[in-house]
């Protein structure tokens, strides 16, 4: 079971993710967003694109048997995204997840985690901090 003793746990970085023009265009289209910054030769990615990459790092939480988390009983509570600069087409980043804090309220585990997106030279481009709520019991 997950507990506060897991605070501070980090997972290995994800496989490098390459941000492409096509994926940025697809993501912007999914938001119905025709902002020219997302098109053309050197597009940047929409602010929430970071969560696409962070999502790959979240897998580590669901797959860590020691935490005992059931994905279908997880609710995304809140999300913060902080950009040191925008993600751009051509960037390659890895995502590293850390469990920051765990609180237990009755049958609900409140898990604060943060994912940093880092280029190979070590530049932190973005941090995505999430609270996940995990219900230990099946809903009636």
């Amino acid at each position, binding site marked *: 079971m997950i507990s506060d003793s897991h605070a501070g746990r980090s997972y290995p970085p994800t496989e490098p993710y390459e941000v492409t023009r096509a994926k940025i265009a697809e993501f912007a289209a*999914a*938001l119905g967003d025709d902002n020219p910054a997302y098109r053309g030769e050197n597009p*940047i990615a929409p*602010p929430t694109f970071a*969560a*696409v990459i962070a999502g790959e790092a979240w897998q580590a939480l669901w797959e860590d048997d020691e935490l005992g988390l059931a994905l279908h009983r997880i609710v995304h509570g809140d999300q*913060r995204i902080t950009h040191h600069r925008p993600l751009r087409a051509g960037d390659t980043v890895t995502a590293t997840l850390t469990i920051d804090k765990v609180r237990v309220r009755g049958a609900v585990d409140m898990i604060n985690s943060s994912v940093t997106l880092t280029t190979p030279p070590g530049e932190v481009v973005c941090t995505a901090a999430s609270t996940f709520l995990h219900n230990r019991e099946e809903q009636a």
Partner: protein
Amino acid sequence: MTATELQVDVGTELPTLVMRLTRETLVRYAGASGDFNPIHYSDFHARALGLPGVIGHGMLTMGLALRAVTDWAGDPARVRSAFVRFTRPIPVPDDDSGAELIVKGTVTKLDDGIATVQLDARHGEDKVLGMATAEVDIS
């Protein structure tokens, strides 16, 4: 991008953005984001988890809400950070009209070239995001 200065004061209101989410919106977002949780496309799976039916992705709501900010700011690179609490899901029926999302924004703080925008995202009477804010570089 151009670095034109935005004319901003505390109390400045962003243009209201009215959007419509249909099942097509959710399928597109699932593919673009890689979030294939079936509660976002299958009534069968959504009901099995006690939901009335398919609901939109929280991150889709956040992305759409931030469009109100980037449409206003022009250059999305101005957005330095954003925070949302996912307070209510948006049910998206399987029909042509889907679900409406209305996003309003107000500048609540100016500090050292950074404007804090407070966002109000509603589906009908429901406030779907709580404490939703974005920090925008207006220098």
